């Protein structure tokens, strides 16, 4: 058999990840390889010329290698067919996946190439050895993904550490009002799961905690967790609110995304799990004055469960598997000046609106515009939601793709915005039937079960769905003081005209970005992330929840933006890998640790059988 190896780069991922030169020379030494050509980056391939070469060199198999050789395959298949060869004998060696983009890039690329030359699928040859697995699992992040994964594993009777950075589990979903497309309320779905987690005998909840270090090897990781001082004994606290009543310090509530305030000692939200208060160092007078001032909450607490001088604790967790479910943050809308977020008070981000329209939110679900008020403490005017003074918006515009699908911000699509924007339109129409509602979109990405029907329904409800991106938001009365109306300008492409009209509330469908701190976690586990910062899965198609690190899994939005059903599915999926390894007592080692010679040997072996 005569084999030709052709290197061509498409320019996907990091170009310096692999040393093509050394790969070329390596390829030349592989059995039966007669031709090795480096065709460079984005080559213009002519099937006819390739066919000639295949004929003259009488090649039986062609291996196309590169960062994503698939982009060139059809040219080679066509050439092979023209040369009278077997088109199935065009094999691909893709250096993009399987950790070939990391430090071990070149070595890994060589093994991938070797497999292709031998005609063996790489994953088949590169099955890592198994290692003994510690039956305890660590789940990082307690949003719906983390909760689901933890429950799947704990329900199987296996111990789980559920780690959460904030004071409560629930993540973003807990903040939502309704969920598309069924419009069932997020709390109804999530709170039972949260309660189940809180009461589960096999789940050890570690809220207000972060990973400090990770050491060890697949199947046996030692994770140092910093449990930040809550300064309140969560088990003893009965959430009576006596402490918050007397606390003098107010600050923006994270749970309400800053549209309402909370005290320095607070419960993230009424249904929080654990259902206990905690103290926010950043705003607590006692902490800021190193115990010189205040401290009234401790005096007031009827259960004496407040320890103002509590210190952070380092806890060591022995775990066999680690599941990353760190989720997402939303894009910082202030980076897009032309939409005037931060300048105009009634330009809201999606999450702010979720809280505004939420029955359990600051306005009790009443949609009103902000009103100006003098803040004595800050000695400045501020814009707040006030159900009495605030008026119901008459015209609401929803702008899609804010920070997404934009070369100047994030080039990728955030997947959920179209649908949640439509949901917003519905909520506005439902609560303010007389209000006009406009959706400015580029492509309406309603791809899921019942999504298209939902989009149709929103149109029927009388929302104007305008195809066209909003170019800018201007001040209605020309004085950029954010007062009064805003003028929104865009093109309505389908009805072929420019639109420029006043609105009194604008909702920005901000895109998703990896949660802050996920880069650090990637470093700790030495995991690769893609160009946008999302965790890289092992194989996009075949193993979407595995990573190249043995015993480390990803699920939910931390791998790429995802809606709730897809997240829940992934979260359950991730449990399969974990439970399998615990059931057999053996888990897969890191592929990264496989030596080239191993893989060559195995591949050769696979052909023989």
């Amino acid at each position: 058999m005569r084999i030709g190896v052709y290197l061509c780069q498409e320019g996907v991922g990091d170009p310096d990840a692999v040393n093509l030169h050394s790969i070329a020379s390596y390829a030349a030494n592989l059995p039966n390889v007669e031709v090795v050509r480096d065709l460079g980056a984005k080559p213009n391939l002519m099937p006819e010329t390739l066919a000639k070469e295949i004929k003259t060199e009488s090649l039986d198999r062609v291996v196309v290698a590169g960062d994503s050789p698939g982009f060139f395959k059809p040219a080679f298949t066509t050439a092979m067919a023209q040369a009278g060869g077997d088109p199935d004998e065009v094999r691909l060696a893709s250096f993009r996946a399987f950790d070939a983009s990391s430090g071990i890039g070149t070595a890994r690329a060589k093994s991938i190439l070797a497999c292709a030359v031998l005609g063996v699928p790489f994953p088949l040859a590169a099955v890592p050895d198994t290692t003994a697995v510690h039956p305890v699992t660590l789940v990082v992040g307690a949003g719906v993904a983390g909760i689901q994964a933890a429950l799947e594993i704990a329900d199987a009777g296996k111990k789980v550490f559920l780690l959460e950075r904030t004071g409560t589990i629930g993540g973003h979903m807990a903040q939502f009002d309704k969920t598309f497309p069924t419009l069932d309320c997020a709390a109804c779905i999530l709170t039972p799961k949260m309660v189940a987690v809180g009461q589960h005998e096999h789940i050890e909840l570690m809220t207000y905690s972060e990973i400090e270090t990770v050491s060890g090897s697949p199947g046996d990781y030692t994770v140092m967790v910093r449990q930040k001082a809550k300064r309140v004994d969560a088990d003893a606290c009965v959430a009576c609110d006596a402490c918050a009543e007397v606390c003098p310090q107010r600050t923006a509530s994270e749970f309400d995304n800053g549209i309402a305030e909370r005290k320095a000692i607070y419960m993230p939200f009424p249904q929080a799990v654990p259902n206990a208060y905690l103290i926010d160092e950043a705003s607590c007078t006692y902490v800021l004055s190193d115990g010189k001032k205040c401290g009234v909450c401790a005096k007031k607490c009827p259960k004496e469960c407040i320890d103002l001088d509590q210190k952070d604790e380092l806890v060591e967790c022995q775990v066999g598997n680690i599941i990353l479910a760190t989720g997402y943050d939303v894009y910082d809308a202030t980076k897009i000046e032309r939409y005037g977020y931060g300048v105009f008070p009634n330009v809201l981000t999606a999450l702010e609106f979720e809280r505004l329209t939420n029955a359990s939110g600051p306005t009790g679900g009443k949609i009103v515009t902000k009103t100006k008020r003098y803040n004595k403490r800050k000695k400045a005017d501020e814009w707040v939601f006030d159900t009495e003074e605030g008026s119901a918006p008459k015209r609401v515009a929803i702008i899609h793709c804010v920070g997404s699908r934009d070369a100047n911000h994030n080039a990728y699509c955030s997947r959920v915005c179209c649908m949640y924007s439509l949901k917003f339109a519905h909520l506005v129409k439902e609560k303010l039937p007389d209000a006009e509602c406009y959706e400015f979109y580029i492509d309406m990405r309603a791809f899921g079960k019942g999504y298209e029907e939902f989009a149709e329904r929103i149109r029927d409800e009388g929302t104007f769905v305008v195809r066209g991106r909003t170019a800018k938001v201007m001040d209605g009365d020309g004085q950029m003081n954010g007062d009064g109306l805003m003028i929104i300008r865009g093109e309505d492409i389908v009805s072929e005209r420019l639109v420029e009209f006043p609105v009194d509330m604008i909702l920005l469908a901000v895109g998703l970005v990896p949660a802050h701190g996920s880069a650090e976690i990637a470093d700790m586990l030495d995991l690769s992330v893609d160009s946008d910062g999302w965790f890289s899965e092992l194989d996009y198609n075949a193993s979407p929840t595995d990573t190249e690190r043995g015993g480390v899994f990803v699920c939910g939005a931390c791998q790429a933006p995802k809606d709730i059903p897809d997240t829940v599915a992934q979260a359950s999926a991730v449990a399969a890998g974990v439970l399998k390894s615990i059931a057999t007592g053996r888990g897969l080692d890191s592929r990264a640790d496989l030596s080239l010679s191993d893989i060559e040997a195995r591949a050769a072996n696979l052909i023989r059988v």
Partner: protein
Amino acid sequence: MEDLKIGVYICNCGTNIAKVVDCDAVVESAASLPGVVVSRPYKYMCSNPGQEMIVQDIKEHGLNRVVVSACSPRMHEPTFRKALQNAGVNPYFLEMANIREQCSWVHEDGAQATEKATSLTRAAVLRVAQHEPLERRSVDMCKNLLVIGAGITGMTAALDLADAGSKVYLVDRADRLGGNVARVDLTAPYLDSARDMMTERMTRVVEHPNIEVLLNSEVEDVSGFVGNFQTTIISKPADGKGTPTKVTHDVGSVIVCTGYKEFDASRITHYGYGKLPNVVTSFEFEKMLRAGRVETKEGKAPQYVAIVHCVGSRNMEFHPYCSRVCCMTALKYAQEVKSAVPGAYVSDIYIDMHAFGKGHEDFYRRSSEVKTLFLMYAKNDYPVIRKAGPKDDCEMLIEVNETLSHETIEIPADMVILMVGMEAREDSGEIARLVNISRDKDGWFIESHPKLDPVATTTDGIYIAGGCQFPKDIPDSVAQARAAAARILGRIAKGKLDIDAVFAEVDEDHCSGCRMCNELCPYTAIEYDAEKKRSHVISALCKACGACVAACPSGAIAARHFTDRQIYAQIEGVLA
């Protein structure tokens, strides 16, 4: 039964309850109730001393019923049940009265609040008197698994379970493994080799000692319930001749991954599929790509290639839904054509570009960079494909009402690729009846809850994954396959299947066999016994909603822990 010894505990919850409710008054009135031997207030019942107090009283006074008036049972019912258990009393002999969330926290008037707390406590006392000891039971969980459909989804699920040591029966009607993905050459958006992926999966499936592959086979019958299904499989001989063989297996769970079928493009006359020789479906084009022959029926390399999206999807006539994968596949073709026929001009006729996944938008951009002409048409306003005239430099002409330019455009084409959508297989109804799960209006299987439980169905032990639930791309199908696997692995890990002590029971003496309940049960947990002419509840499947109880005309069904008598007692309690 031994006489009632009820202990009543009123929690002050610091001042949370005591501040509004006069707890001592509640304690007093409770003390006078029939059967009550102990009645005390305490600062924090949930605290360890509080629980300890209950345990002590049980030991001293031999309490056999306990009422705790405190916070919402959603908070601490498990806590106090555990306390009872520790003291050797059946945990279901506990009743809680919610006098915090639903009393002291929501009322200002002390007198009225106290009265309410009193009556809630009274109701709890009267109710608990009616309680019966309940035991959590468990049924055997058979490790074996039946997987219907051997596509990427089925194989993935099978491998997960088989690796964990379960015996897996992998059944498919076709004569080969791999399903639809096996027909695909490259996958969007990274153009990885689908063939390598499938080779890897198939090799492992075929070589796996725990997987029994049954091709040319159909599941004839599935009976029993979760953890204990009996299934009968008929296999036709590979060559088609000879008599079919019939085997039966015991399995604990069933995963349905029967996938989808492609839309029949000839149903849309506008496209002339079947009439115009060079109008091909996506799968036919895929075949050309694999063979390295991207050429017209006349064997010429096409100069103009047009791709039409949403064939059978997103319209009123055929399917309202989006088939989810076609957009990316179309973009894939656009680039593959450019590679196979460098000189070709590609136009891509779409409605909305659904490039929503990881790497998708970038892939969309790449297809633009290779100078694909994208044309947008409105839903239900089909482009029309017709034969070109002798003077034209192309085979066909496509007339599109192009919405981005408001022009009616004629696109030259030598080859047209129709991106046929996905639709439910015609046998989905049959399968649904077989494992009794339900289908939506489009014929897709319905999951038990789209967000809580996307892979489970209303029939416990039956799971759905992949394209049979709704159109899905490979990663999402694989994820669902593994999700189903995880659910099963979890149950196997426990060996036995715990059944909540709270479920419905039919009193066969009173059952008239009217079968009203059978239809009513969303979990098909009620079976009708034809001989006895009686219905009975499969407790393993019952989720205790009580719909049947309320509906039973002869009052023959009782909901454990929510019996009529218990609720009557509660009613009397609150009203007395």
